């Protein structure tokens, strides 16, 4: 995904992507099948699912977690992310 900004801020400066709790994940792959942005990838080995492309994740989207039966996906705190984006915008506007 080549989209580089979100709300005018470089996407790679925004911390927003799912984190997999491997103690809960049962590798059903519902999230990987669902996500159209290829955030997840399947791999060989014990951890058969990884967040391979975190910056492909649409900021504030949590749809994959709503497909997760074992509740193994978590996201950053939204208000903190909003504050982060606003701070970067403010910082860049004075530069």
């Amino acid at each position, binding site marked *: *995904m*080549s*989209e580089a900004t*979100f*709300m005018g801020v470089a996407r790679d400066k925004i911390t927003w992507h799912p984190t997999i709790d491997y103690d809960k994940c049962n590798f*059903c792959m*519902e999230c990987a099948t*669902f996500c*159209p*942005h290829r955030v997840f990838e399947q791999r060989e080995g014990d951890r058969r699912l990884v967040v391979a492309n975190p910056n492909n994740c*649409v*900021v*504030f*989207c*949590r*749809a994959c*977690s*709503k*497909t*997760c*039966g*074992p*509740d193994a996906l978590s996201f950053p705190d*939204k*208000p903190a992310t*909003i504050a982060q*984006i*606003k701070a970067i915008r403010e910082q860049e506007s004075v530069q």
Partner: protein
Amino acid sequence: MNSAILSCTGLDKPEGSVAREVAIRMASAAGSEIICPVLLNRSLARYKKVLAENPLIVVDGCSTRCASKLAESLDLKIDRKVLVADGLKSSGLTLEPTLNLGANGLALAQTIVDGLVQSLTAPVSAVLSTAQSTEFPPPREYLVVTHDKFEFRIPTADYWFNENDVWVRPLGGVARVGISDYMQQSLTDINFVDAPAMDLTVEQFGELGTLESSKAVFEVVAPVAGTVVAVNPEVISNPTLINEDPYGKGWIVELKLGNWPEDRELLLNSDAYARSVKHKAEEA
């Protein structure tokens, strides 16, 4: 109000056991007709009369949503839904890790039953407000973004968008909120609207309920801060109205605006949103 209740079987995880317990308790607390999901899957005819005569409550244990998906696969109209995993989070309880419910599991089941019974007996006006103080004229003109055989319409004026494909149409201190034509086409037919509660105060980019289609559960990301003053009763009873008229009759909620001038700085106008849609369509 009589009802039919379809729950998770409760044989995979404790949340499922709670869902099953909710169905059993609803039968005694509210006279709900229990629908066995396994038998329903085998013989829809067995429940045809019950389903025709009663609103359907679906209780899912976890986000796999087996009961909801079964109902959707059989084209059953869902009146209301409960997700035990959500109830568990908001309760602050910890479920015992066994399929035989312990004290916390039973307490959670009863809390969910109490909420359902209350919602079945509450007057509609307590849940939804149909009284609109403001007339919102429909869009007059649209930009059209084309991609392959698809066309995505965007009103040329008065509508603002966040990058999560939710629009806001402010007018005189209040605003309507809905999803864009691009998003409704991406979701395909919307079959359930889980609307936010009346009087809920939400921050910009907070959650304003969810929409469900066979493809996804879509979180409505609030484009502005505000307080919910109306929920569109038409889209609750007929969610595909959002697909048919996303910028008009398919509005979802009305908000009393909290901080419009500042919120607007983080929104896209029609031209900017059109560029965003074009980009998304090409990337999809």
